[in-house]
């Protein structure tokens, strides 16, 4: 006689833990871009390359978790959240790491220097962007509490509040990004044209990281509302 039970198979593996694990790795990955820009400012090439490798490795790790999670979310799974919404949330989380990787890759391939006009505002901008991702991680950390509460009540309200905070941080980064873009425009004539193009690109990309973090928060709101 087999020692199995239909009940054991009834409970599928929860996607919540892997979602949180994924977000944790994404956050670890993004956390490296502050030292990355510090290394850039100090002209420490070696450290920059090392950090770029680290970011790539962590992005790869996040991808692995993502693929593993995707492969075991069959349509026959009955979950308290919509499967499509959950996958979209996962994609949004993943985009954060992807973008961080793009930024790091660009800095590694194209040897650049921080222009004088951006020196003051750049690091605070990057730091605030990372703050947004950290906040996003905190929000995702509430997912298991949300399941416990059936996505309602106090846990739901707390998450709404946290997502609101995330939105506020993102707005701040928007302002900072705009400020930097203006500074860059004013300094255009003194810089090499290609450098100008790529710095616009970098400012944009860093902003994207915060945008994706906000996107994660918004999608979580959707999960709660269903």
């Amino acid at each position, binding site marked *: 006689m087999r020692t*199995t039970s239909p009940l054991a198979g009834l409970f599928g593996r929860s996607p919540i833990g892997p979602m949180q694990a994924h977000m944790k790795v994404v956050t670890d990955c993004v956390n490296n871009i502050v030292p990355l820009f510090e290394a850039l400012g100090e002209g420490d090439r070696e450290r920059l390359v090392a950090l770029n490798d680290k970011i790539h490795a962590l992005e790869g790790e996040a991808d692995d978790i993502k693929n593993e999670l995707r492969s075991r979310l069959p349509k026959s799974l009955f979950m308290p959240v919509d499967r499509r919404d959950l996958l979209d949330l996962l994609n949004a989380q993943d985009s954060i790491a992807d973008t961080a990787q793009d930024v790091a890759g660009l800095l590694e391939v194209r040897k650049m220097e921080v222009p004088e006009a951006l020196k003051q505002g750049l690091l605070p901008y990057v730091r605030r962007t990372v703050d947004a991702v950290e906040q996003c991680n905190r929000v995702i950390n509430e997912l298991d509490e949300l399941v416990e509460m059936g996505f309602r009540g106090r846990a739901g309200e707390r998450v709404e509040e946290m997502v609101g905070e995330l939105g506020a941080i993102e707005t701040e980064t928007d302002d900072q990004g705009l400020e930097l873009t203006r500074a860059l425009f004013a300094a255009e004539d003194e810089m090499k044209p290609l450098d100008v193009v790529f710095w616009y690109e970098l400012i944009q990309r860093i902003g994207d990281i915060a945008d994706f973090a906000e996107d994660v928060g918004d999608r979580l709101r959707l999960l709660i509302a269903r």
Partner: protein
Amino acid sequence: MEYAAVFITLAIIFALYMTWGVGANDVANAMGTSVGSGAITVRKAILIAAVFEFTGAFLAGGHVTGTIRKGIIDASYVPAPEILVWGMLSALLAAGVWLMVASYYGLPVSTTHTIVGALVGFGIVALEVDAVQWQKVGGILASWLISPVIGGCIAFLLTLSVRRFILDTDDPFGSAKRVGPVYIFLMGALIALVTLFKGLKHLNVNMSVGQSFAVATAVGVIVAVVGKLLLRRIEVDREAEKEFHYASVEKVFAPLCVFTACSMAFAHGSNDVANGVGPLAAVVSIVTTGDVEQTSALPVWVLILGGTGIVLGLATMGYRVMRTIGTKITELTPSRGFCAELAAASTVVIASRLGLPVSTTHIIVGAVLGVGLARGIAAIDLRVVMGIVTSWVVTLPIGATLAAFFYFFFKGVFG
């Protein structure tokens, strides 16, 4: 009657074989949610099952047994008592064999459904189509559809109430300690009431409505006080709360699950053991009295035998299934296990009091789905649910065919 001793011996062997199968496989399903949520250990579950399966069968098994032995076949169609004896033996053997085969392939089957199917099959081939009390069979079939739904509804409401009164409060931990005993009281009182209210006739205990209510309340208060004492020892775990806000509250649900596990074992014993020994009771009664109408009282030793079979099954195989469940179900929290099990136990106890042979496994699955519908479980595999529904449908014809086959076998040997 010729071969009287042979018939009784065979019936005892088959009934033991079948209840052994129930103990080996089915008990683990019944108590799976509390074991799976980690609220109680496998060892505790086995101990609880041994005691309460037996008590459930002994105290509350009589009604279901009655339905199995008298409710499905109309005795006035039986030309000779031997034929009914062969039929009951075939039903037992069919159920035992199918339980074995299905468990081997990992299919979720219900003993109850097999026995009912087997009796119907016997009625059709040995007597005539009209000998089957189709109206009663229809009622039983309807109860198979309705009981998981009712279990699911109760589980849904329980999940909402746990959220409302415990989780979504300023101090969930304190609320759990306060409200927990109330749930235990309600559960203890309900089960006691259902069991006592004219349910102990086979033990010559007859209580009036008032007496039943009084005793049930007393039982409820006693278990609630025991629960309160158990809960007092639970302390807040700040470290675990950093990871998961409701970690301490869930700790409170662990001792509560001990009570639901007890009631589930009791309910399972009252329903499933009784199904298993129903045909045995019939054989004993026909052979000793020669009366196919079976007006004689249910011998108590039959229920004891069923309880013993279950405990044997538990001791030899059941603990392994239980351990598998304990390691395989990792995503269930004690509060969910509590809601599902409490709902299922109430449903099964009420059904068996009404004499309805229901399937405990199907009701617990219904209850789990109910918790899921309240958005309480992170992932439920609907393929497994489909498998259970399928087994539901195929078990009846298979039970009927096997029973028909065994009937002709017995007829050939003894006829």
